[in-house]
């Protein structure tokens, strides 16, 4: 295990060699986040996957060609050029299949992905048996390996990543239109084919420079995970781009650092795992679309609805009990409450427990319920809102009085103060001087014994 000093050294880029690796992977992550956002929004993720797998034959062939020309065959620019060309050939094959046959897109992509990858694996074996050349290390393009990076590689990766990121920002408006509504874009004279090719070029660029550090199998995860995670945090494109760039950059930085500390771990896998953890955090906790904040909002609303139902039921019981027309806060039997709504005894007990915790109830004799001062106030308010809404539905929405209770039940809980005062003006000629207007329909009698 690396000790603390080593960890700090790597994370803070104090070692020259890891500094290069970590920095270039961070830049790659930023570019992947930006380009990946548009790839995701254009719904072309699968195409990116096929593209990255299609780069492998190019790596092997470029190696063979460079050896044949008398080199070592290990020059990164040469290998990346080969990867680019065969990636493009893969995409071209895909488009050819789409336009000349009536096969579905996913079939074309699956075909290209598996055939090109298969050819790549086979040709990799072949070049490894070429006499006079050592092809050892070419497999690292499959799973990714950062340790072998030199200064020139760093320059290539950083420059391509920088240019790709810049292109995303320059073509922001055009890409947005293309991804949202390509038909409208074309009708406006935007060259959608050119924009699609440009986007695919950026995807190719990021894929190719990602081959060395992340590897061709996992680079698609590096393109797709950051924007998918970013989407949980925001509802708008520009923040999404920046968050995706941040998540991509952070995964690249952390992933490359971790794999520098423990060289036996393949960098690509570590980077993708870090990105996946950030995705998981986003999916669970992001306030805008995350699962937990959403569940909390739902639970809160349900509790509010339960509470208002309970208090209104209590108020209506007190109304029926009232002898001289004045509703007083008196204790009443628990059994009455059970008959007011289709509560099971268990549900009712849970709701009562929450109401007690919120100080809406006071302790009363066993088997009876007594509202607290604040509970009684809240109860008359809830009842009033309900009746205002019911009256409105009967008067203006033409809903039968026999149905109005149920309909009002669904809406009243989300009435804001503004809506309530609007309702009051609409209904100003009704019995609104009363704190609580009478029910516009007969109340169900409380179940008696």
């Amino acid at each position, binding site marked *: 295990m690396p000790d603390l000093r080593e960890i700090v050294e790597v994370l803070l880029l104090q070692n020259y060699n890891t500094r290069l690796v970590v920095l270039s992977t961070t830049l790659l992550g930023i570019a992947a986040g930006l380009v990946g956002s548009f790839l995701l929004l254009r719904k072309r993720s699968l195409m990116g996957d096929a593209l990255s797998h299609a780069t492998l034959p190019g790596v092997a062939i470029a190696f063979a060609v460079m050896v044949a020309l008398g080199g070592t065959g290990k020059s990164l620019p040469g290998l990346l050029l080969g990867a680019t060309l065969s990636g493009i050939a893969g995409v071209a094959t895909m488009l050819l299949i789409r336009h000349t046959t009536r096969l579905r897109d996913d079939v074309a992509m699956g075909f290209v992905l598996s055939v090109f990858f298969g050819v790549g694996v086979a040709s990799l074996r072949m070049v490894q048996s070429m006499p006079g050349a050592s092809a050892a290390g070419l497999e690292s393009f499959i799973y990714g390996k950062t340790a072998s990076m030199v200064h020139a590689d760093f320059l290539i990766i950083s420059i391509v990543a920088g240019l790709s990121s810049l292109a995303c920002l320059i073509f922001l*408006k055009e890409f*947005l*239109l293309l991804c949202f509504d390509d*038909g409208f874009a*074309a009708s406006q004279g*935007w060259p959608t084919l050119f924009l699609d090719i440009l986007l695919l070029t950026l995807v190719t660029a990021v894929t190719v420079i990602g081959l060395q550090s992340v590897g061709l199998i996992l680079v698609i995860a590096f393109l797709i995970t950051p924007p998918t995670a970013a*989407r949980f945090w925001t509802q*708008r*494109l520009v923040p999404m781009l920046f968050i995706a760039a941040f998540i991509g950059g952070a995964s690249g930085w952390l992933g490359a650092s971790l794999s520098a500390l423990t060289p036996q771990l393949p960098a690509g896998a570590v980077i993708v795992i870090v990105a996946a953890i950030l995705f998981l955090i986003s999916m669970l906790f992001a306030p805008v679309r995350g699962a937990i904040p959403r569940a909390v909002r739902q639970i809160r609303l349900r509790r509010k609805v339960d509470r208002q139902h309970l208090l209104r039921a209590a108020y209506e019981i007190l109304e029926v009990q009232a002898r001289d027309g004045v509703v007083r806060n008196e204790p009443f039997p628990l059994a009455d409450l059970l008959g007011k709504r289709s509560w099971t005894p268990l549900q009712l007990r849970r709701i009562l427990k929450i109401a007690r915790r919120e100080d809406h109830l006071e302790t009363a004799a066993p088997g009876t319920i007594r509202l607290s001062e604040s509970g009684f106030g809240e109860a008359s308010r809830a009842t009033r809102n309900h009746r205002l809404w019911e009256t409105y539905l009967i008067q203006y929405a033409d809903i039968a009085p026999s149905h109005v209770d149920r309909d009002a039940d669904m809406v009243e809980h989300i009435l804001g103060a503004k809506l309530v005062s609007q309702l009051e003006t609409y209904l100003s000629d009704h019995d609104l001087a009363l704190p609580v207007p009478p029910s516009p329909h007969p109340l169900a009698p409380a179940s008696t014994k």
Partner: protein
Amino acid sequence: MHSESLNTQSTFPARNTEPRPEHPPEIPLAIHDLTVAYHRKPVLWDIELNIPEGKLVGIVGPNGAGKSTLLKACLDLVPLTSGWAHIYGKPYRKNRHRVAYVPQRESVDWDFPVNALDVVAMGAYRRLGWFRRVSKSETERAMDALEQVGIGHLALRQISQLSGGQQQRVFLARALMQDADLYLMDEPFAAVDAATEEAIVELLRKLSDRGKTCLVVHHDLATVTTYFDWLVLINMRVVADGPSGETFTRENLQKTYGGKLNLLEKAAEALRSTPL
């Protein structure tokens, strides 16, 4: 089936040898001899059409009659097998700025990370040109367009949180942003609430009062004559067109919606089932 005779041009119906109707220059939309085919299946055959200025035009016909394709053909969005469509006397690409297009609502992903105002601002993109960001004055215009369709208060809402009718209004506001003379709308009334339907009709009338021409693909025969003053009945070819009152006849509707497969459909069916 006489498959051997269907492989060639001869499957298309004999061209009308009567003199072609004149196409006055400068009318909003003139279509001549227009034929469109998808995957060898003809969708529109030999369309001749003149749309006069300032009319509210309803395009009516059964499912698969080629109504949407007709709009797309006018906008250069589908390849034409033959013929042309001219906008104010010129090919579409020369007169783009005079046309606004409202695609079908289902044609886009409404879970996209943009708000209503962002979508409406897209109507200004052509004016802005490459790379220029949406300016403050264009944002104000977009806001104005949203007010015109009655949902200014929803400007900053993410588009998936709008109702179907509100989404349709967003699309209409985007078209208003384009400040065009000819509006092509693909089923703006599909699955919208009554209030939205009313708002759209009101908007169409306003546009028409300002001398704009609107072509609207429409489904509801009950409202056709009240909403539109000009009709195009279409089923792969133009069955009838002209002022609503004269065009909306039982006979024309029978021809458009006639239960029996008409000859064109039979031929199209034969083409589809013929292995080539």
